[in-house]
């Protein structure tokens, strides 16, 4: 079988560098690398509009999720409300700047930055406006992907709550529900995002 050496018909698996012939896959099917089974594309996650809706919802719940208290504690007739921002602030106040910066970055900055970048990209693509920052924005989005840690914070809320249940009376507050929503929307957004499709659209818009 002769190898097709037309570069337009070729692709390489980003994960193992296997040279593959490009295939168009039908709706509902997934293409994966024949060698390392890296998922190349999910054609069902195809709509840029869905990405936009998802991020928009995410931005709506983001601010309640970080500013509203997620937990209240009653100790010795005194009630304390705790929010994500107040956790970071108390880390700064107790001179644990190193920890505070990382907690702030992974919990507050990364989700917000990712959503803002994605809003920028999807609206530009939707309105077919040209911008030289599209590729740069999407690169930044992908770089930040590893560093978002909302899901881990959820588990740590549970661990902290169980540790504290003997010392104080705990109550879930509105912020917790907003946070869970943000977490779910964030996960959905990552699932829906079709990176190859977005890169192709960006390429079309730049030229």
């Amino acid at each position: 079988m002769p190898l097709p050496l037309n570069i337009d018909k070729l692709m390489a698996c980003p994960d193992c560098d296997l040279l593959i012939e490009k295939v168009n896959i039908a709706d509902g099917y997934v293409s994966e690398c024949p060698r390392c089974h890296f998922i190349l594309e999910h054609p069902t996650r195809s709509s840029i509009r869905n990405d936009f809706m998802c991020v928009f919802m995410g931005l709506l719940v983001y601010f309640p999720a970080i500013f509203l208290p997620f937990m209240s504690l009653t100790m010795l007739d005194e009630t304390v409300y705790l929010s994500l921002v107040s956790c970071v602030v108390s880390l700064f106040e107790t001179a644990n700047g190193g920890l505070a910066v990382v907690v702030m970055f992974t919990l507050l900055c990364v989700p917000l930055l990712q959503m803002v970048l994605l809003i920028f990209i999807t609206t530009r693509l939707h309105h077919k406006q040209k911008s030289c920052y599209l590729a740069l924005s999407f690169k930044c989005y992908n770089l930040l992907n590893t560093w978002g840690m909302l899901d881990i914070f959820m588990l740590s809320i549970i661990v902290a709550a169980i540790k504290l249940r003997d010392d104080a009376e705990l109550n879930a507050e509105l912020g917790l529900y907003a946070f869970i929503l943000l977490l779910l929307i964030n996960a959905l957004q990552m699932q829906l995002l079709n990176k190859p499709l977005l890169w192709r659209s960006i390429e079309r818009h730049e030229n």
Partner: protein
Amino acid sequence: MKTKAYSALEKGYVCCRQCHKIAVYQIDSDYQECSRCQSKIYPRIPNSIMRSWVLLLSGFLLYIPANILPIMSVNKGGDVRIDTIMSGIIHLMHIDMLPIAIIVFVASILVPLLKMLALAWILMAIQLKWRLQTHGRAKMYHMLEFIGRWSMLDIFVISILLGIVKFHPIASVDLMPAALLFEIVVILTMLAAIMLDSRLIWQEVIDND
């Protein structure tokens, strides 16, 4: 039918690490620019293995003091408890919170340790050109990229406790050096995994069916 598999590089193509666009490899230059996203394309991340080893080893060196030094001290009305990561877990077990103790043990002791061992194994396999179980190593690499973040659990739990206890009339929590060290370990090992170019794992595998 058995066909031979080629890596893109062997056939003279390079794939952009950022946007996965394929381009013709220009042998005479160190790197070239991707026509789609303007990133620098290297055929493989330069010094990937060396950088990964350095980050991994410094992570491992810090992992030792992070486990020996105390991570926080809790003062409950004059009764002071100084905990290391392990003694905190044992304390959790003694007060009948075994499931939580297991979660914390897995996230803060087992995961970083296994992650460092697995990464060292993958790096050694690349350097010594082992050709067996490449699939297993590739799977392991993805797993450790995924689970590495979970070690931050303890850091977040501590920051929640700190946020609460600030308002408590008689109790206080102070963070000790191990908290910062531990956080640095997590970040270093995450960077080590990112630095390792996954395509190197497959470099020695040429035949495939």
